């Protein structure tokens, strides 16, 4: 071995290696983000099993080296630094949330490694001019609600909301969605009656609910992560105020947990935007859903698991296309190509920002339906106005 091999990845030393291909991943398996972190792990593992069953990637079996970053920014930096410099993994996949991917992607960028992240759509992620970062969802946070605004534009004037309230959690993934929606709806003439940002540890929503009940907005658009989404609906119901339209960012996408939390009957008509739908007919989606159910006691996959699966699909497509794990080639290929994933087609700008559109979903009769855009819709009917609480 010459000096040139020093510091190179083990697999670069022999192109025809039969060693497993090691993908380094840090995930929040404990701490605040342990829930999406756990789902992301499942998504990655379902993908790994599928690819290995078909002979692997570049003819090599895939090994996932998953470490726990405990939802901590310092730990995630340590994790990726160690994966790259000491473990010398062949490829990387991202962690969960903008908070953790922000520093993690900087480590990857410094080491010139491609970093495909399954979550982390906060605008500041893409303001740093990184060349190796790719966000594997259809759109970033500020564009997440575009599809909902577009839906409101299609309504006849008498069916549009005239007034709106915008409570949102102080969260990098919720706030930009709601503030961008507010701007767009104000431009449409929807009057803002209430805006409020509350901290992530807020547990009592009666105070917000009582103000909303006194202002009586037609639309309540809440930047809700999960607990806060359930909390606000419960409080609104306790105060017996039901808006004509209710939109929440992420909370309603946690299917069973959401309907358990607010009561199945109360989900009727709730809107949210989502990157993925279980019934979507995208290539490989039925396989993903079936394999997930087989692996995890027949549970429905969460969106977070699907996003992780899609991130892995993106990496797989690029590695397969360039026929090696040369990071520069993978990066250049991703910048100039569109990848078909279970979320639909994904393509990126030079900063790694995706250029697609989210799906507008709505709870109808205890199930989630996609109502827009029309090419992805699972139903033609939309519940509007929302019925009263049951």
């Amino acid at each position: 071995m010459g000096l040139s091999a020093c510091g190179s990845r083990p697999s670069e030393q022999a192109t025809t290696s039969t060693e497993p291909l090691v993908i380094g991943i840090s995930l929040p398996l404990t701490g605040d983000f342990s829930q999406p972190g756990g789902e992301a792990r499942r998504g990655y593992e379902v993908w790994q099993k599928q690819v290995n069953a078909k002979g692997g990637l570049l003819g090599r079996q895939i090994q996932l080296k998953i470490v726990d970053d405990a939802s901590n920014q310092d730990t995630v930096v340590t994790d990726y630094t160690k994966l790259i410099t000491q473990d010398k993994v062949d490829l990387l996949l991202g962690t969960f949330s903008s908070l953790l991917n922000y520093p993690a992607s900087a480590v990857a960028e410094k080491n010139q490694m491609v970093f495909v992240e399954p979550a982390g759509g906060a605008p500041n992620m893409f303001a740093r001019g990184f060349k190796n970062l790719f966000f594997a969802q259809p759109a970033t946070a500020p564009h997440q609600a575009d599809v909902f605004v577009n839906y409101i534009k299609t309504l006849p004037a008498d069916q549009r909301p005239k007034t709106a309230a915008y409570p949102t959690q102080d969260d990098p993934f919720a706030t930009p969605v709601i503030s961008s929606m507010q701007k767009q709806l104000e431009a449409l003439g929807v009057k803002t009656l209430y805006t409020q940002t509350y901290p992530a540890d807020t547990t009592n929503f009666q105070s917000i609910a009582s103000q909303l009940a006194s202002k009586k907005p037609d639309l309540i658009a809440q930047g809700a992560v999960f607990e806060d989404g359930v909390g606000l609906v419960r409080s609104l119901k306790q105060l017996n105020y039901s808006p004509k339209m209710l939109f929440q960012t992420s909370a309603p996408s946690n299917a069973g947990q959401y309907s358990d939390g607010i009561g199945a009957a109360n989900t009727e008509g709730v809107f949210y935007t989502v990157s993925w739908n279980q019934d979507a007919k995208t290539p490989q989606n039925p396989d993903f859903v079936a394999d997930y159910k087989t692996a995890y006691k027949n549970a429905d996959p969460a969106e977070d698991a699907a996003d992780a699966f899609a991130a892995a699909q993106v990496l797989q497509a690029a590695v397969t296309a360039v026929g090696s794990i040369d990071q520069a080639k993978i990066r250049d290929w991703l910048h100039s190509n569109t990848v078909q994933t279970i979320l639909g087609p994904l393509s990126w700008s030079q900063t790694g920002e995706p250029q697609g559109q989210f799906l507008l979903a709505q709870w109808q009769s205890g199930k989630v339906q996609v109502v827009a855009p029309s090419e992805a819709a699972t139903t033609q009917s939309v519940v509007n106005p929302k019925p009263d609480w049951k």
Partner: protein
Amino acid sequence: MAQLIQALVLGLLIGGVYALMASGLTLIFGVMQIINIAQGAFLILVATFTWWLWRETGIDPILASVITTPLMFGLGWLLYRLVVSRIKGQSPSMSVLLTFGIALVIEGVLNVVAGNKFKSATPSYFEESFTVGSIHLPKPQVYGFLAALVVLAGLYLVLTRTWTGRAIRAVSQNPSAAALVGVSAAGTAALAFALGSASAGVGGSILSVLYPFFPASHYDWISRLLGIVVLGGMGSLPGAMVGALILGLAETLTATYGSLRWSTLVFYLVIMVVLLARPQGLFGARLREDGVAA
């Protein structure tokens, strides 16, 4: 005016539940100088168990505290005898490390056994309210508050009217004098730890109805409870109650009249101001400084 009354009433209801949750923490500190970081994890453990009981048997979640309380009493007693007693006499920071370890173990076990998903018990009344004029009193909060009152009153009676309670207070005020009159410090400490844990039995059952929770929720709860206890004075039960009510009111009043962003900040600002004026907290006793001329 109605808005003010609504905010005050909600603040009091929430504060009552907080008081119950914080009572165990302050009791354990008062007797043993042990800061039980696992108290939040105890709450989530009980909430999870309550949720499971409610789902499997249909028992009312708040009533389920009749089952969870003795179980937590037993668990607290066992934990003290097997683990916590080993650090007796060492510095409080040691107890922080140990009980944080216990909290992590509980979180890990819950992740494996119950899964890392949000849960919340939703009995029929979980989103109903009593209405008095234009004031809404959410039923779960009202029931939770009443349950908290009953338990706090019971705890107060135990501590003031029974020999055991007097022993617990004696040990917390002056361990050596208590030993002189025949109070077993070890037995009393185990009992206090068990009682403190048992209070999480009721607190956790109430929590299961009031808030969605998952294994890692205990971090939020312990930070809130520590804030309450520090404000009220470490080891003081009345202090915990007053601290809890201040937190409840700070939350609802700032949410109604200011911005929710300020609610956490306001509470901690109150703590800081109080500690500047009274380093031992509102009701905290200054530690004895034997041998120093007053």
